[in-house]
């Protein structure tokens, strides 16, 4: 793009692509880190209000500087490295967790595509045709972060916690994947942009209405994938000290912590993309066609963020409401209830699509 302006011939497309990717990545990274910080504050405040108390409200007005204070505290903490740890693996664990959490966000379109400076640009960092396949692969990689961290800690209780957590994640990935496949079958494409556009019809064809069971399955699977809400046995304070992140202090713990919350954001973004219509505006086609309006991108991003925020609120709401599920109940539920349900869902969807 720059070289084109300067009139220099050459691999302008490649340079343009690189610059576009870098700019989008930086924006997404900044957004995710900011979102992580304020999600922790939002969670504490909402959880507090649901429990008849105030959340943090001392540090800055309404506690708005609390994430800064937390970040500073974690930075200044002493990094205790136990003597017996397997150093490389121990250090890799949180890094992989965080890296994978960011990776999964790369294919999610946050707004409608637009045309700028000679190229059709999408509002996903990477426009991958087989985005959903990429996503499934990346979600499975998340397990590595936990297993490596647990084993590298050289602490048998951390190991147990990590094994529990990874078994839980693997079990619920199946239900997640199958309900995702049902959406793909309905949309006819693996591309996330295609899936959003498939929900862009009038009247409302969001997949949450066409696939309510799939939505529930994906939501529950999402809660279990991120070790959150009623499925947080592996990291609860009352169980196994702190589970797989017992031996991590200060900044290393912050990486795991960030990975968990960014996973939450990513799963919310996914649910929004797959079931809630992504950036599609509710009144699309009635008042104006969103893809032609000049401020379409802003509206699209706004609605995408609003839906994401709603699902994140649901995450926090469920955490405040439900008690923790015991591990054997968790496994039973994942394999004997969710998996058959998602297979059935897929069957019915496939039948419907093939017959119509």
């Amino acid at each position, binding site marked *: 793009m720059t070289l084109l302006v300067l009139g220099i011939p050459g691999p302008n497309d490649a340079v343009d692509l690189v610059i576009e990717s870098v700019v989008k990545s930086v924006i997404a990274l900044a957004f995710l880190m900011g979102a992580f910080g304020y999600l922790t504050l939002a969670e504490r405040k*909402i959880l*507090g209000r*649901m429990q008849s*108390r*105030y959340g943090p409200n001392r540090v800055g007005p309404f506690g708005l500087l609390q994430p800064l204070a937390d970040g500073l505290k974690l930075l200044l903490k002493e990094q205790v490295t136990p003597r017996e740890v397997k150093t490389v693996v121990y250090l890799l664990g949180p890094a992989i967790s965080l890296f994978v959490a960011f990776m999964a966000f790369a294919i999610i379109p946050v707004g409608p595509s637009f045309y700028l400076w000679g190229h059709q640009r999408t509002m996903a960092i990477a426009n991958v045709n087989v985005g959903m396949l990429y996503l499934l692969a990346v979600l499975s990689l998340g397990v590595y972060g936990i297993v490596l961290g647990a084993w590298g800690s050289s602490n048998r209780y951390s190991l147990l916690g990590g094994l529990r957590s990874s078994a839980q994640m693997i079990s619920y990935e199946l239900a997640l994947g199958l309900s995702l496949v049902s959406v793909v079958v309905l949309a006819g494409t693996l591309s996330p942009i295609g899936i959003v556009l498939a929900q862009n019809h009038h009247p409302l064809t969001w997949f949450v209405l066409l696939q309510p069971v799939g939505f529930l399955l994906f939501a529950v699977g999402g809660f279990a994938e991120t070790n959150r809400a009623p499925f947080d046995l592996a990291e609860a304070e009352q169980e196994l000290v702190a589970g797989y992140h017992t031996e991590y202090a200060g900044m290393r713990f912050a990486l795991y912590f960030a990975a968990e919350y960014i996973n939450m954001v990513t799963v919310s973004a996914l649910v929004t993309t797959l079931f809630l219509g992504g950036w599609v505006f509710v009144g699309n086609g009635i008042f104006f066609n969103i893809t032609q309006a000049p401020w379409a991108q802003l509206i699209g991003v706004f609605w995408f963020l609003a839906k994401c925020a709603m699902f994140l609120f649901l995450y926090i*709401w469920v955490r405040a*409401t*439900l008690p923790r599920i015991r591990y054997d109940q968790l496994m039973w539920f994942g394999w004997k209830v969710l998996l058959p349900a998602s297979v059935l869902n897929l069957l019915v969807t496939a039948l419907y699509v093939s017959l119509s």
Partner: protein
Amino acid sequence: MAILEFARGLGVTFKNMLRPPVTIQYPRERRTLPERTRGRHMLHRYENNLERCIGCYLCAGACPADCIYIEAEENTPENRVSAGERYARVYEIDMLRCIFCGFCEEACPTGAITLEPILDISDYHRRPLIYTKDMLLEPPRDLESLPA
């Protein structure tokens, strides 16, 4: 269906979110304490500003935590402090040992030592929490302003 139960539970937490929190945000807001709340000690005086404490050691004897330290001194005509023969020259209560039981208040014959409903007793160090007589003594009344 179990899902309806979840929805009911979610409704409960949501409704609770909309209610005002029950937190009393100390120190900006304070609770109204009952009159007989056993808080910080105070040494009282008579109406004519003479101290009530006569240095009889009854409170120190009654204290189960053994936290009151007294040194008594004779009242002289030049220096009359209390309304009896003796007064307490040194009177210290170790707030870190006190269990706020009120036995000293019950044991005192003159009504000198009482426990007031004051709960703001905290500090960053141990030494300042050994309260001395000047910290415990009631300030003298303004005799001119009293009605005749």
